[in-house]
């Protein structure tokens, strides 16, 4: 079938709802409205109100009720309407979902998915564009998945729904619809914890994820016409971080650029740069470069195109990595 990312995600939920009656979908406006991005469109009509249902407007309890459902043995897929509102869910995710297994010596676990669209350049209002993946990457016990294509969006979401650990699933709002591709019908998974090589190259490793993977690929294309060949690593899962794939690429290229649209300080770029210099110090020909959002809150719409790294920003950093 041909699908864009939001359709791929919807397809994954439809398949999961059909194959496992313990799967339930909950969140604000996920029922009749089908979600503000239509990710759950038609699911309530197809599976009924006891499988797909609206919650009150309360993000802490969306996650917290999810923990309860999971403890009882169901497989909740909780939707938080925009990534920035995950701040409100964080306590239930980090202090509860992530630790249920530890606290019960494995007797109970919070096998649940928390889905949220994230990211900027979509002209959304305040706090709708934030990228909070680093907060969850700093929270062992939850996995963090961030798809970049219709294929991995569907496959990773199906993997996340099957996963016995809680998974925060951050969807690239900016490319929800822009990217359309052929994906397999029916059930398949893209395993959590594995990065993929999105483009091969030998000069510089560009590590990206989510919507920025596409931007990194654009940059690679730009640079290729100048004879600079980037290897683009698409992390897919942000946590646990697949260090091996990154390191294997850097072993080849000796140079790396890490890209994300989240705030720079204490973001994933820091973790990846730290990891590369730790493990591949002697194969590094230049410092790892970071291309990120600024050390400011996500700005007003008028400045967002400057805040979210574009292909030119990435290309600039690649050139810097090569200059050094």
């Amino acid at each position: 079938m041909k699908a864009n990312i939001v359709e791929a995600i919807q397809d994954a939920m439809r398949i999961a709802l059909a194959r496992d009656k313990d799967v339930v979908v909950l969140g604000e406006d996920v029922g009749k409205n089908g979600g503000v991005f239509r990710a759950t469109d038609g699911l309530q009509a197809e599976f009924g109100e006891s499988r797909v249902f609206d919650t009150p407007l309360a993000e802490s309890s969306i996650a917290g009720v999810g923990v309860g459902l999971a403890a009882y043995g169901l497989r909740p897929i909780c939707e938080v309407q925009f990534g920035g509102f995950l701040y409100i869910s964080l306590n239930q995710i980090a202090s509860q979902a992530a630790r249920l297994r530890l606290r019960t010596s494995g007797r109970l676990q919070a096998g649940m998915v928390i889905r949220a669209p994230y990211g900027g350049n979509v002209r959304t209002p305040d706090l709708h564009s934030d990228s909070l993946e680093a907060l969850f990457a700093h929270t062992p016990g939850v996995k963090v998945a961030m798809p970049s294509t219709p294929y991995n969006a569907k496959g990773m979401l199906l993997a996340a729904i099957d996963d016995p650990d809680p998974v925060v699933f951050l969807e690239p709002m900016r490319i929800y619809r822009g990217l359309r591709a052929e994906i397999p019908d029916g059930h398949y998974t893209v395993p959590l914890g594995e990065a993929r090589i999105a483009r091969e190259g030998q000069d510089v490793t560009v590590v990206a994820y989510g919507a920025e993977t596409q931007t990194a690929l654009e940059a690679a294309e730009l640079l290729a016409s100048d004879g600079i060949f980037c290897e683009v690593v698409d992390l897919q899962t942000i946590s646990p971080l697949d260090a091996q794939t990154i390191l294997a690429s850097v072993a080849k290229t000796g140079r790396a650029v890490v890209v994300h649209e989240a705030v720079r300080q204490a973001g994933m770029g820091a973790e990846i740069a730290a990891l590369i210099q730790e493990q591949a110090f002697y194969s590094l020909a230049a410092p790892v470069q970071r291309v990120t959002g600024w050390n400011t809150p996500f700005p007003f719409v008028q400045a967002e195109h400057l805040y979210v790294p574009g292909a030119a920003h990435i290309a600039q950093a690649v050139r810097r990595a090569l200059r050094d």
Partner: protein
Amino acid sequence: MQGNFLRPPQAEFPVIRLVAEDGTRVARAETEPDRATLLELFRWMVFGRVFDQRMINLQRQGRIGTIGTIRGQEASAAGLALAMRRSDWLVGSYRELLAYIAHGVPIEAVISLYRGGVPGPFPEDVAAMPIQIVIGTQMPHAAGIALGAKLRGADDVVVGCCGDGATSEGDFHEGLNFAGVHKVPAVFFVQNNGWAISVPRARQTASETIAQKAWAYGMPGALVDGNDAVAVYAVVKEAIERARAGEGPSLIEALTYRVGPHTTSDDPRRYRTDDEVELHEKDDPIARLRRFLETEGIYEEGLQELLEEEARSVMSQAIERAEAVPDVTPEDVFDLTWAAPTEAVRRDRERTLRELREVGEVGKE
């Protein structure tokens, strides 16, 4: 033999109404608006209608971003704003745009915000928090500001507003509970417009009314017809005077209806019937107030048209001013993030700006 220990909910809140749908008076109140205020209410409501339509048009033309609609809720917004002093704090959200403007916030500040820019500082004499987007978070702020006023011995009152959906948030609870315990001079005003995007009020809480939630915080509550501007004004006024007199906070539920879509991005046909909307459209707060003004002999022929004309021209000027405001720069964003930047912040700002300049050059290659 005892049993049935569990007491089912019993709070009954009759809807307070001073003016009936057909514009006839049904009751009087001490705190109701005088003639001048009635005309002001009408003027602002008419303005609100024009404002709403113009903002929707601007959005359609791509000149502003997604915007919430306020059609049908003008009486609640205007009634609440006019019952306040300018020095009273307005702490609300995107659904109270009309209240913000009537309270003194420049229209161009609101337009700037929806143009994706900085709103610019509100005038010094306008007491208001920013227009909140993160649902419910403003309620603890309202409690805190009111506590501040109480601690300083000032006679400022705070009006904290939110929607019916927002009452489900933990922050709604924490804010009102705090306000109750500390007996702060605050009025909590919930515009129950029937919907939180696609979620109907009945799926938001099993509580029969939102007004009765007041009792959970040890404060009085009131349920007012939110399409009756006269009643909204009177009830809010009573609550504000009570708060100003040191008698503590209260919670008002204004029963109204969102006639338009949630925002310009919303398609309400997905979740509610046209019949329902039509039914509510008939109860137009502007028409109701106009009929009341007519009955009272206050309305002068052609007033509404005049006010509409005036509103259109005010809006055009405000749009012009807003569109003349230069776009936000990265410098603005850094400089508004920190009041006291450290050396590291200054260096980081310079690095970021340098990289942006370089990319600009790369772009020009």
